């Protein structure tokens, strides 16, 4: 006979999960389904006439060089952000791992950027790199480099990448540090006795052993760069100059709310939705596989 706890029919469990379900339905399921439906429609800018056009919006998107350009730009942007923030976080974590005195203080300071909202982070970098007021602009000017991200698309891209990566460093740092500290000390000692110096130990022992964390963070960072950088882009460049920093999430906003192409914008967000779903699947499918020590 199976021994199991049985609960009688009751409204309580439903009441307990209801708030979460309501939030999910109102803020996620409903808008998502609206976007799905909207992506199959074409509407005139005044909202007077709506036509059901099946997949015309999607077909048009993939024939649109601006959209494909934004796609390429987003991929470049995302991987740059992920690479930059992860490399930097990894370096910091490797150094923090060796620190014994005041380790908690370092850690606390390094976590702070994560608490800063994306827009605020963007605003910080805008001020530092402002073509007329920025401290970095001034320094670069003194070194003979004229910085103006409002005119130079490459510089604008560089700036949004830096601002986004900076924001993500703290999060990556935490995970990398935790992963490093879970490696048994004796492995590092064994490698030291085997003659490996700190750099060699890092590349041949530590890095392979934290690879599950690295993979996990890569997915998380790409997702962040794809979807959560709207605030930073909006504050730093607003997609400019000449759409040089218009990444996919920003294009959804621009085309939908500025350009009033609601159907096309909805189709773009549906594509983004598919991307995030597939990234989530990858994450759950492969990241759960852990290395045993």
């Amino acid at each position, binding site marked *: 006979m199976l021994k199991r706890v049985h609960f009688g029919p009751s409204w309580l469990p439903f009441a307990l999960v209801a708030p979460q379900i309501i939030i999910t339905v109102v803020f996620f399921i409903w808008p998502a389904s609206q976007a799905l439906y909207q992506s199959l429609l074409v509407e005139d800018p005044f909202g007077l006439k709506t036509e059901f056009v099946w997949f015309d919006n999607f077909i048009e998107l993939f024939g649109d060089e601006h959209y494909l350009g934004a796609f390429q730009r987003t991929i470049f942007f995302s991987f740059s952000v992920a690479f930059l923030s992860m490399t930097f976080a990894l370096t910091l974590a490797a150094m923090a791992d060796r620190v014994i005195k005041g380790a908690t203080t370092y850690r606390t300071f390094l976590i702070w950027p994560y608490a800063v909202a994306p827009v605020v982070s963007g605003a910080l970098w805008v001020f530092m790199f402002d073509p007329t007021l920025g401290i970095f602009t001034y320094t670069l000017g003194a070194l003979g480099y004229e910085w103006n991200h409002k005119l130079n698309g490459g510089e604008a891209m560089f700036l949004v990448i830096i601002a986004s990566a900076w924001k993500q460093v703290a999060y990556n740092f935490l995970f990398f540090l935790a992963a490093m500290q879970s490696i*048994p000390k*004796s*492995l590092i*000692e*064994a*490698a*030291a*006795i*085997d*003659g*490996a*110096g700190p750099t*060699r130990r890092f590349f*041949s*022992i530590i890095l*392979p*052993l934290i690879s599950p964390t690295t993979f996990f963070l890569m997915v998380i960072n790409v997702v962040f760069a794809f979807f959560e950088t709207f605030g930073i882009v909006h504050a730093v460049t607003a997609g400019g100059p000449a759409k040089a920093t218009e990444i996919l999430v920003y294009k959804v906003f621009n085309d939908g709310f500025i350009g009033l192409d609601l159907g096309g914008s909805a189709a773009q967000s549906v594509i983004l939705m598919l991307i995030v779903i597939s990234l989530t699947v990858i994450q759950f499918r492969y990241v759960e596989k852990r*290395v*045993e*020590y």
Partner: protein
Amino acid sequence: MAEIHLNKVHKSYGADEVLHGVDWHIRDGEFVVIVGPSGCGKSTLLRMIAGLEGISQGEISIGERVVNDLEPAERDIAMVFQNYALYPHMSVYNNMAYGLKIKGIAKDEIEKRVNRTAEILEIRDYLKRSPRQLSGGQRQRVAMGRAIVREPSVFLFDEPLSNLDAKLRVQMRLEIKKLQERLGITSVYVTHDQVEAMTLGHRLMVLNGGYVEQLGTPIELYERPATAFVAGFIGSPSMNFLDAKISEDGKKAVFPGGDALDLPGDLAKHANHRVTVGMRPEHLQVDEGKSETTSQTVQVVEHLGADTLVHGTFGSGNSDLIVRLKGIRTIGKGEVLPLAIDPRNIHVFDPDSGKRLDS
């Protein structure tokens, strides 16, 4: 091949001194064991030899070189860790080859050496596997292989057998001993298990609370323990300790109940002093009709097959006493066993300092 000199080695963490001056000269090719209860500083001492812990004071030299300021890699040592510390992401072959690759040894030479070592340890069949796919005993062999393949001048073992089950431990113990004899490499072995220490070491260091209690061969430690701690630590079941007083003429130990035992020598200079008398369970034997020297009132009898352990109280007093008799004996509870002991097997210790008292 190398000698190891420990010269007044101290270790402290802040104001906390954990090793209070260790002196030892380990000869070339010798197998020495550092033994003691947990927290006595034995692993710390080993890690200082390895270079994994700094030396607070004193000097350690391996061969001709003082190694105080050398990195572990420069000391020409190899170490086997308690948890084996195999690199989980590398195959057995790569685990063993890692140190050689770093040294910049040619590929075919590495292959030759790894294969030869694998042959010795009988792990050739596992070379392609990852450590995760091996059993505890196999991992242990790989860990030793990784140490041997580098042909260091000193082997360090940090409780390498404590993660194995009892049967495997006995088997590996023997293999380590044979291997050390065959390779003739100076080895330092740390353990808390006195049986391991006695069976493996040419010489032993007994550490207790950061102090060296005694240095010597296993036989010396067994026959002439320098302190009550060593006497109790070496041997199983451990030595019986009884409070007593030295008689006026210094030739007898008188126990509270009135019993008296002959002493090995003349302790007249300690006459009338309180002492601790130690007698090993296996040295007390049933007195076959000879003059009765003492007795034991039996409480519990344990049969081990080869031996019989008799627990009871000593003489007419009520101190606990364990006697180990050969073979299977039928002894009833409450029986009074007449016992005798050769005076040469009686150890006398100072009850305060624990030091051995000799004539």
